[in-house]
């Protein structure tokens, strides 16, 4: 009855503390590469190169584009670090208990999750139909988080609306 699969309340703050710098870092690094591929700041390049390392790959490609299975390969792990930190922090933000958790909050959470799933897949369907090739790969990369982001936005808006309606009552 009491099982709700939620993190303790303090994990929400921890989630934001991880997510914000991780996101900021990614935006700075990604955009400096995407927008100015030939003139990226050398300090950024050398920072990114720090993360070149040998990793164990279940599946992957080597430099010749050949498929590799269950082998050690060279890879820049900055992307992986960012993805792991973002997913974990968004899970913390989205699935931590509210300060005053009760059944109405639980209901809003469930409804928001259903809503976010629909919105996420409607947008993904549109992207499948209208976005192609490399651009679609960017969509997929974003899609890793969008369901969590839509859920967090919708859930917090609903809770804020609930609090606002209470203030009107006073």
């Amino acid at each position, binding site marked *: 009855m009491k099982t709700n699969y939620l993190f303790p309340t303090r994990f929400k703050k921890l989630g934001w503390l991880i997510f914000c710098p991780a996101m900021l870092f990614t935006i700075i690094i990604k955009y400096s590469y995407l927008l100015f591929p030939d003139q990226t700041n050398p300090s950024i390049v050398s920072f990114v190169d720090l993360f070149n390392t040998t990793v164990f790959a279940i599946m992957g490609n080597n430099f010749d584009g050949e498929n590799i299975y269950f082998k050690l390969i060279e890879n820049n792990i900055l992307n992986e670090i960012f993805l792991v930190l973002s997913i974990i922090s968004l899970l913390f933000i989205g699935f931590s208990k509210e300060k*005053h958790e*009760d*059944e*109405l*909050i639980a*209901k809003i959470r469930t409804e928001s999750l259903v809503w976010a799933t629909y919105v996420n897949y409607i947008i993904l369907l549109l992207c499948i139909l209208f976005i192609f090739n490399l651009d679609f790969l960017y969509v997929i990369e974003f899609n890793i988080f969008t369901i969590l982001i839509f859920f967090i936005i919708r859930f917090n808006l609903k809770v804020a609306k*609930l*609090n606002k*309606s*209470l203030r009107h*009552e006073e």
Partner: protein
Amino acid sequence: MKNSIKVERAKKNMTQADLAELAKVTRQTINAMELGKYAPSTILALRLASIFGVEVSEIFELEKEDWK
């Protein structure tokens, strides 16, 4: 579903905050129930009945649309 939480609360001279604390829910939930925007779980309905010292059926009443 109609309910008489507000009436029962007034009889006991309780604020929404008092009732929320006794029922172990937030004031938002009490408010949403009084406005008919939220139907409580069986446990919460039983808690409210116990707090007011009445039967659940005295607080909550089914409406036609609850059968649809």
